[in-house]
Each structure stands twice: as structure tokens, then as C-alpha cells.
């Protein structure tokens, strides 16, 4: 393997890991507040299609990204209304959001399939991007890669140092107690769910505007679900999400590694890899079930309505 190939692989790894970072960070915040949103896949697709349509119509990628974020939040609001205000079953509601989002995105995007778009261009960071290998791997990405890293730092700080983070954790552990000491549980949960929607909407924009600038039905290919597994894998820690996302990114582009080697694997078999990897990770996690249980937010998935 030559140095160019390695550089390309690492570069692609970071690109592929970026949407997973965004989704998983958003979902982590959501789950920390005690809400399990299985609708990531649906929000992701809607974010992607809205971002793409906005970009095609306005021609402005910046505006398009905001449209995608907003679309993700609207979807999350829908989920939040059911799961938080109406105390519906979170698993069923999340599934509904995914089914709805899949249908909605296919419907909205039906006239945009096969249209080309000038996607997001890399933003080379002066000086640093000129470094050999590292310059290409780390400092010649499109802006959203850097945005994702910034958001990672934000979430990391939120739970490590801030009072708001402490409150979110409290709500996710014991909503009754949080309510009793005067924390507005519903408000915080809405905020967390909306943040998750924004992050996933952003990830959708990344997919349809930067990663592969186009729209096709179901283009998220299960990334929303993989990100959900990633949160468990990371045992609800931001830094481990970062690591896990890049590991998954690497697994998804393994075909690049095999390119030109003796191992010719049919593309459909290769495409199974991220999904099989996810299952393997879930199995591997079971070896440390106690730790998973300790780090999981205690009231996750349990609806809560304050009594009046």
C-alpha cells in the first residue's frame, strides 16, 4: 500500500464518520435527558432531502444547511409532542418517526432524484493543510467536518463542566426527583430532543450536500440506526462517540482498502459490512453489561408527565 492510498483511506474515514458523530452526539444528549428517539433515520432523511431541495432552489448551501437543521427540529418537535407531552411509548413513536420520515422524504424528493448539485467544497486551512499526509487527512475538509468537531467539543463541555449538563443528567436519571427540586423536566426534555433533531438534520445536510451531493430515496442507508448503536457503544460519553464514529467510518470504506488487492469481494457483500460490524459491537458490549447499565441514563425510555 502506498502513502497516497493510506492518506485517502484516512481522509475518507473522517468524511464517513462525520454524519455519525453528529447524529450520535444529538441522540446522546437526548438519551441523557431520558428520551430514546428511535426516529433518527427518519429525521436524517428529511434533513437530507430538505437540505437538497433548499440548495437546488436557492443555490445557497449555507441557507440549505439551515433549512435541513430546521427540518430536523420540526421532526423532533413532532416526536417530542407525542413522547413528552402525550407520554406515548417512545419506542413506537420513534419507529413512527422513522416510517413517516422515510415516506415524507421519498415524497418530497420524488422530483429531485437524479439531479446534480455542486456540493460543498473543501475548506483548506491555511498552512496546516500544506503539511504532508496530515494536511490532506485533517485540514482539507468541507466546513461541516469542522463544525462537527466543534459541536463535539461543545457537548463534551456540556456534560463535563456545565450546570445545564448536570440538570440534563438529573432529568434522565430520575424525572420525579428532578421535578421535585424544581427542574422543569418537560422543558429540558424538549430542548434535548430538539437539539437531537437539529444535529440529525445537520447530518442529513452533510449527506446530501457534501458527502454525496445528490438525493436518492433512502440514501441514509441505516446511518441513523448505526448511530443509535454507537451511543450505546460509547456508553454515553462524547469522546467515545468520536472514536466509535471514526471506527465505523473506517469499516464502511474498507472496500477502498481491498481495492486492487487479490481479494475481490462482490460490492453487495462488502456493503453488509457496517451492519455486521454494528451487530458485532452490540454483542461485544454484552460482555460488559453491568458497565452499560451503570452508564445508561436510568429512566431512559420511560414516559413522564408531572402530576397536577
Amino acid at each position: 500500500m502506498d502513502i497516497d492510498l493510506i492518506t485517502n483511506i484516512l481522509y475518507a474515514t473522517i468524511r464517513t464518520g462525520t454524519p455519525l458523530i453528529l447524529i450520535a452526539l444529538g441522540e446522546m444528549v437526548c438519551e441523557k435527558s431520558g428520551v430514546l428517539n428511535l426516529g433518527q433515520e427518519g429525521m436524517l432523511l428529511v434533513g437530507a432531502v430538505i437540505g437538497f431541495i433548499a440548495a437546488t432552489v436557492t443555490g445557497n448551501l449555507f441557507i440549505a444547511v439551515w433549512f435541513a437543521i430546521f427540518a430536523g427540529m420540526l421532526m423532533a418537535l413532532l416526536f417530542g409532542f407525542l413522547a413528552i407531552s402525550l407520554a406515548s411509548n417512545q419506542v413506537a413513536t420513534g419507529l413512527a418517526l422513522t416510517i413517516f420520515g422515510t415516506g415524507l422524504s421519498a415524497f418530497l424528493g420524488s422530483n429531485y432524484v437524479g439531479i446534480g448539485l455542486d456540493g460543498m467544497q473543501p475548506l483548506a486551512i491555511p498552512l496546516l493543510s500544506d503539511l504532508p499526509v496530515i494536511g490532506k487527512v485533517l485540514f482539507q475538509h468541507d466546513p461541516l467536518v469542522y463544525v462537527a468537531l466543534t459541536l463535539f467539543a461543545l457537548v463534551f463541555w456540556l456534560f463535563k463542566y456545565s450546570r445545564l449538563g448536570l440538570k440534563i443528567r438529573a432529568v434522565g436519571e430520575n424525572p420525579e426527583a428532578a421535578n421535585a427540586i424544581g427542574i422543569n423536566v418537560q422543558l429540558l426534555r424538549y430542548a434535548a430532543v430538539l437539539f437531537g433533531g437539529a444535529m440529525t438534520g445537520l447530518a442529513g445536510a452533510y449527506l446530501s450536500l457534501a458527502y454525496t451531493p445528490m438525493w436518492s430515496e433512502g440514501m441514509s442507508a441505516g446511518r441513523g440506526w448505526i448511530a443509535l448503536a454507537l451511543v450505546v457503544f460509547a456508553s454515553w460519553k462524547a469522546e467515545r462517540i468520536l472514536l466509535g464514529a471514526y471506527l465505523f467510518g473506517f469499516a464502511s470504506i474498507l472496500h477502498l482498502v481491498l481495492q486492487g488487492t487479490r481479494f475481490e469481494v462482490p460490492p453487495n457483500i462488502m456493503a453488509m459490512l457496517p451492519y455486521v460490524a454494528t451487530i458485532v459491537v452490540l454483542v461485544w458490549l454484552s460482555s460488559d453489561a453491568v458497565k452499560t447499565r451503570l452508564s445508561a441514563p436510568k429512566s431512559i425510555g420511560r414516559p413522564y408527565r408531572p402530576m397536577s
Partner: protein
Amino acid sequence: MSSSERLHLQGITKAYPGCIANDAVELRVNSGEIHALLGENGAGKSTLMKIIYGVIAPDAGQLLWHGQPQVISGPSHARQLGIGMVFQHFSLFETLTVAENIALGLPADQAKDMAALEARIREVSEHYGMALDPKRLVYTLSVGEQQRVEIVRCLLQDIELLILDEPTSVLTPQEVQQLFRTLKTLASEGCSILFISHKLDEVVELCNAATVLRHGQVTGHCNPQHTTSGELARMMVGDDTPLSENYSKAQGTRVALDAKDLCYQPEDPFGVRLEQLALQVKAGEILGIAGVAGNGQDELMGLLSGEERQDSGSIQLNGTAIEHLSPDQRRQLGFAFVPEERLGRGAVPDMSLVDNALLSASHTGLKRKGWIRYPAVRQFARHIIDRYNVKCADEDAQAKSLSGGNLQKFIIGREIEQQPKFLVCSHPTWGVDIGAAILIRHSLIHLRDQGAAILVISEDIDELYQISDRIGAICDGRLSPIAPTQSVSIEQLGQWMAGQFSDPQPQQPEVSHA
């Protein structure tokens, strides 16, 4: 109106579908007063406290604070006014530290500097004689220590009224004394205390004013120092309920249940490890195990019922080894269990009483070749409802629609009607009104007199003294000596509950350990 009047409730009313929790309640608390709010379970005490603390809003009535009408919008508002509350079920976050828990309850500006906060926690907790380590994770604390966290959280703010909801129910007798000293210190410094309880002796010992509630209405105001417990009790339960019950003691015959060397390390990281635990229950006796919650009661219950599997040790019923059997296999041999959690373990909340009657009784001929005999099940459910005076719409009512006491009667009935040889009963009358409690205790005594071996695990010491023939305590996964109830003083039992006994268990239980 006294100038030192701090809190005054006027005509507070709160109704829920199907019941009036508070009906035009009047209550006055003066500064420096330790005021008891007495009442049976379900009398409306907790609802009233939550109204004062702003957790729920009253339908009618008003609240005067220092003589000024106030509408308390929520707990934060209550705390701003200087009202603090310690709930019966603590509002703590187990995976956070003591300091983090306390910080969450404080206004943001006071919680900024964690180091300073930790120092203050140390200082305040020591001043009131309840030392705390601010850096510990809450789930590693004992129940008594967790209560201290709650109290310290209130004390760190300028507090003028401290509300405690049944604070002694989770403490050993010695811890209760320590708590009372703390509360008296606080009161002497001018803080008012509202002490919710249904235990008369405690109220007489601690309080200098009392308000009694029954069925949501105030039935009397008095000074417990000048009132007899008999008079207090009358106000609490009314004229038509017997006040105290005497139950005969029994000796027991041969050993029915024999557990030896039970060792168990629970998977649950919050669980308690059992070590070398041995226990014998005789046929025809009730053995009572006292203990503060979370000292291994659940784990012991799990091993006996077969829901958990011990790491080593043996359990025999009438000479048959059963430690490897599943719960349903044990039931076929004559085991029965009344778990602590009624809704969500002893009964399925959303299922009907018919379906719930089948839950643990399927081996009594209610199914044939894999098919359920619903007519027989329905008949069984009706039988329990009639015999145990369960108040419900009909046997198709959902379990969750029953009151706690009625559901407990149903579960106890279901278990006892299987004619068990060995019954484990956890917290038989917790949260149950006096009428139901008496019925439940009578049923247990009746079953005992038919020759069943009964193990009662409870935090209610009074009850254990009433119905147990032999008594012991569990602490930190170890079992104290077991002795005839009459020979164990309450101080002795308190020491056992605090873990002051030596291992292994001596054969002479009268030997006391300082």
C-alpha cells in the same frame, strides 16, 4: 394572630378523580415549632405537603406565609421563600455525587464554586451531627445517609420551614434518635418543622404541636405534650376502628425451611451481597426480619423465591433440596410469595384481576394441557375478592385501578388461598389503612395456625413485634441472631439493624453485643 406565625393554610382543598385528598384543611405553624401532621395512610398528608411545597396546586383555599397570601408556583419558589422538603422517597440522583445533588437544588449562583460548596456541606452537616462526604456517589450511601443529604440540601439555604415526610420509616431506632436531636437543634435556632408521621410515640416524643387528618379533613389540633396517645389515635382513625390488636404468639414445630450458607453476588451494581446467610423457619411460626431498606432484603427474597440463583449454599423445604428449582417449581412444592412491589411484580398493572389471579396460581388446577381453564380462574378471582373483602368494580377491573390496600389484600389472598407450606411476605401492610392491615395480619396468623411457616420481611418494627413469634434483623447482607420476640428489646433490635452483632450467628441469641 400570633406574630411568630409562619405558615397558615386556610381551606385548602384538592380533589382527584374518585377521591378528595384534602377537604378545607386548616393548619398553622409557628416559628421554632415542631409541628406534627398525623394521619393514617391515605389521609391526605402527602398531598397537603406537596401543596405547601408547590409540587401540586390546590383546587381551592389559600396559603399565608408570614401572614401574607402566597401562591407557590413550584418547588423553586418554595425554596426561595425558605421552605424545604425531605420526601419519603428521596429525590436524589444515585449516579451523581452528594455535592452535585445538593448543587442541583441550589440557585445557580450558590452552586458555581464546587470546592466552596463542598466545604459548606462538610461544615453544615457536622454542625448538625450528621457527617457527610460531599464527594461520595449517592448510590454508595446508606438510606440514613441519603436522608442526611436531603436534609443538608434544605439547610444550605436560609430555611424557615422544613417539611419531613415520614422520615423515620427508613431509619433504625438509633438513627431516629440522632435525627430527633438534629431536628431539636434546628428548632431551637428558630426553624419551624413540619413532621409527617403516623407513629404516635414519635410524635409525643418530638413535637409540641399537632394537626390530625382523617379522610382529608382535619379532625383535631392539639399539643402532643398534653394529649395522650389514645386521644391522638382516636382522632386519627375515628371511633369505629379498633386501636390495637393483640395476637397470640406461637412456638412453631419442626423446621420447615432450612437455608444454609447462602452466598450471592447480585448482578445489579446497586445490589447487596449476601454472605454465608443461614435461616431456619419452623412450621407454625412467623419469623420477622427487620431491617432498613436496601440491606439485602430484596436479594434474600429473590433467593428464596427462586427469581435469583445463589452462588453457593443450600435451601431445603421439609428436607427436600430446592435451591436449584425455578419459582414455579417451588410453588408446586408449597412456596408462596408476597413481594414488596405490588403493582409491577405481585400484580400486572394493566391486566384484570382474573388474569392476575392466574399469575402465581396456575399450578392449582387452573390450566390443563397448556390451555387455561378460564371459568375456574374467574371463580378463583371472585373467591379471593369475597373472602378478603377486596373493594373493586368487579373481577375484570384492572389491577392498577385498585387502591394499594385492596390490591395487597388481593395478592395476599391469592397466595394464602394456595394453602402454602411456606410463605414469604415482604412489607405486608406498608401503606395500607388500618382496617386492611388488621385483616391482613389476621390472615397471616390464621395461616400460621394451620401449620404454615411464614417469613415476614418488614421495615415496620411495631408490626414485627405484633405478629412475629421470633425476630431478627438484616444488615448489609448479614443476618443477626434470631430470638423469640418477647426476649428482644427494641434497643437490641436496633443494634442488630445497625449491624452490631458478630458472625457467625451464635446459637444463644440472648447473648447481647454492645
